[in-house]
């Protein structure tokens, strides 16, 4: 039986179909979840996709945090279920306090859509184990509020614990502290990234197929744990 990866659609989610496509390309089964769903049914992992959930009113991710489905996501995540938050999903993970820090307006004060070279700093998480440590994937970024910030102590702790998962190379596009493009929790099951791996799964429609590794990683992890 294929691994079932839930993809949450909030009103205003945009990259939900793309995340589902990526799960399928990696060999998993994407299960659509609705923001009002009372449970996660029997999914093995969850992707919170990019977009503008609830119009990003108030603050990016601030309303999505209170969606009914997020109660289940938070519960299951605390129980070790792998969760990947991409872009708006990363913002939601921070707002939900599943990950530390916050995403603020880009320092260039413009929306930035570009192909970005990155470095995988931690290849042991549930979502990055298919990469070699130090791998340099090229993924699209497309966000207006992608600047990762946290206080110095949190940043030092993240660095020390190896919780910085991705870093920007060839220039920092949004003012993120320490060029941080993605982080994880202490267990490596919960990962938030600003770049879009789901938009780099086929060179026909993306800058590369470098993003597929995120989805392959979690499928391998889950198949391994089931065996």
């Amino acid at each position: 039986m294929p691994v079932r990866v839930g993809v949450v659609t909030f009103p205003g989610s945009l990259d939900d179909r793309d995340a589902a496509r990526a799960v399928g390309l990696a060999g998993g089964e994407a299960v659509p979840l609705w923001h009002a769903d009372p449970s996660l049914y029997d999914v093995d992992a969850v992707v919170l996709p990019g977009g503008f959930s609830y119009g990003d009113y108030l603050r990016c991710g601030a309303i999505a945090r209170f969606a009914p489905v997020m109660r289940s996501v938070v519960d299951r995540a605390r129980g070790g279920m792998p969760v990947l938050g991409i872009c708006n999903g990363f913002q939601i993970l921070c707002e939900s306090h599943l990950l530390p820090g916050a995403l603020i307006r880009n320092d260039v004060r413009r929306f930035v859509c570009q192909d970005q070279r990155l470095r995988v700093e931690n290849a042991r998480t549930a979502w990055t184990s298919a990469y070699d440590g130090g791998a340099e994937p090229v993924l699209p970024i497309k966000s207006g509020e992608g600047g990762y910030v946290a206080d110095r102590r949190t940043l030092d702790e993240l660095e020390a614990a190896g919780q910085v998962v991705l870093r920007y190379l060839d220039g920092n596009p949004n003012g993120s502290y320490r060029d941080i493009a993605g982080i994880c929790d202490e267990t490596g099951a919960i990962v938030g990234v600003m770049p879009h791996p789901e938009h780099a799964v086929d060179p026909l429609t993306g800058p590369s197929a470098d993003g597929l590794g995120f989805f392959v990683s979690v499928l391998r992890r889950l198949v391994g744990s089931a065996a």
Partner: protein
Amino acid sequence: MIDTVEYAEKTPDEAQPWAKLGLTEGEYGRIRDILGRRPTASELAIYSVMWSEHCSYKSSKVHLRQFADKAPASDRLLAGIGENAGVVDVGGGWAVTFKIESHNHPSYVEPYQGAATGVGGIVRDILAMGARPVAVLDPLRFGPAGAPDTARVLPGVVAGIGGYGNCLGLPTVGGEVAFDPCYAGNPLVNALCVGVLRRDRIRRAHASGVGNTVILLGAKTGRDGIGGVSVLASATFEDSTKPGGARPLRPSVQVGDPFAEKVLIECCLELYDRDLVVGIQDLGGAGLSCATTEMASAGTGGMRIDLDRVPLREPSMTPEEVLASESQERMCAVVEPSAVDDFLAVCAKWDVLATVLGEVTDTGRLRVHWHGEQVVDVPPHTVAHAGPVYDRPRYRPSDLDALQASGPDVLPRPCTPDELRSTLLQLAGSPNLASKRWVTDQYDRYVQGNTVLAQPEDGGVIRIDEATGRGVAVSTDGNSRYARLDPYAGAQLALAEAYRNVAATGGTPIAVTNCLNFGSPEDPAVMWQFAEAVRGLADGCAALGTPVTGGNVSFYNSTGDTAIHPTPIVGVLGVLDDVARRTSIGFPATGGTIMLLGETRDEFGGSEWAHAIHGHLGGRPPTVDLERERLLGEVLVAGSQQVLLSAAHDLSDGGLAQALVESCLRGGVGARVTLPDGLDPFVALFAESAARAVVVVSGPEAERRLADLCIARSLPYVRIGTVTPGTAVLDVAGLFAVPVAELRKAHESTLPRLFG
């Protein structure tokens, strides 16, 4: 007090503000004749917005007929002019709808919201046809790049387009940005949207079936945008923008909420999927006035509405304000009574407000009630489809002979290798030819995961069927300097360029949309330009076999008292059986032979060189040869289908030199080029002769097969060089060489320098 029908009958002599609402005395008289009494305030609001130039096409109709009269036969056309947008069959059971519209004056008054709601409006047009919107292209025109007002308008417009389109999840895959002093007080913001649907699922704006329910869904109605079409898109705009003008315009600009539109899209698509809709219309210009009268007129013929049920942001709004409001993110649907509960349940799922307003009748009248009193009783046909039509006087602009006589031959040309090199770099960095990344990197081009090509490619290519790889290519083009020198040829050159761009990506061009941006139709010289451009475009579409499926006219565009250059923007749609065979402009890292297709002549009238280097506009635009364009298109498409081409780039502004620069930069590689014998190097590099392209083929076999394709069509072709991945230098043999890094600096630093 409320001006009811009953009261209007009793008070025939009450003075009415018809002139302030943009109606002429004759038009007002005609409304009285139709109704047999004076109109109520609500009726006057409806007629004034619906008979505005923007909604009624009263000055353009007599000319636009040519698009239908001269249309080439096409079995692909499923819905054409007159619908919210044209729909074409692209094969495999799929259909594509696409249309372009302008939002020029709102974007000048309030750049961010004007541009944002321009995107929102065209997206709803596409949605109303039953399609999922899948891509946007934005042709933009601004005043001089260095002008202070351009620094106000451009960043706002770009942020507005991005802010709205990005939040809707629509990839922006193309468009243009160009600068010219003629747009200093009147930028052009055109937006084209493409939508995809199954060919048997087209929706139409018909209110049919007596007893069917009329439902308003989407955002609440507020005072924003009142008079949008009659004030901003009409003659009164000019007066109002002058110091001490008639009234502040900002309240006439609508305010957008892209999140509301995003959920409205998903809600409508679910309603379509579940077949809960008989007819549907978006609310754009002229709001409810337009939707109710157009739907009734196109359907069973009558409608009864309780206007006080409309959910309001401002409870104090009058019925005429409710009818004229252009609040965004609203649609009007006609639903069978048995489906209303399901309809409302879907709306509730998406948290979309939906309100039953009334029902379809067979009375032949639109009757609107306000708290029990009748405020409107009109035959909808007279509002929506039988408005005034003017064949306005026109004459050839008096300065045109002198302009055409003052050709570019007198301009000093670069001769030495150093001069040629410096001209190439100057042009590559000139605002019109410089990289537009500063703009386009603010647009999401990846969302939806089907973008195969996007700017700076020749055209946007979108996959519409993942299983088969079927897709469409779209390009928009327009060169107003050409159109100023010769509007007939200028419109055809815009068409030819868009057609060539689509073919260069590998798409077979099949249909056309257009946005005609002109000055005041009351100026006979402008009207002549307009008539010529329409005639040129209609003739051109006939010659190329690509029918016009819809479009938009924007009049009253001027800077001060001077009309903008005539600016027909043409969008061409093409189809690819398999998007994996698309052709990019980028020279390949694997190398290859560069071929130049077509014929280069000493043509510099209206050229970018004359404009950017000499500030000159005069002479004649390049020769139009549409049969040659068609044959070139065939070669480019066959080359893509047979997988012969590893790159293709059309030649247009800036000529061969600019094409080489762009292809080297896109591929990140160098090239070594030998200019063809018998041509002056300056002409070979910078002439803007149409019907040309550069292509790259790999290996003698591909070169021979390409040659065969050209020979069979008597299309001139010549080998001009090779892609040199190792060098990172653009080397024009015997003349000069420029490192790719230097090209990049010249090409990419201009816009960031200007706009931060």
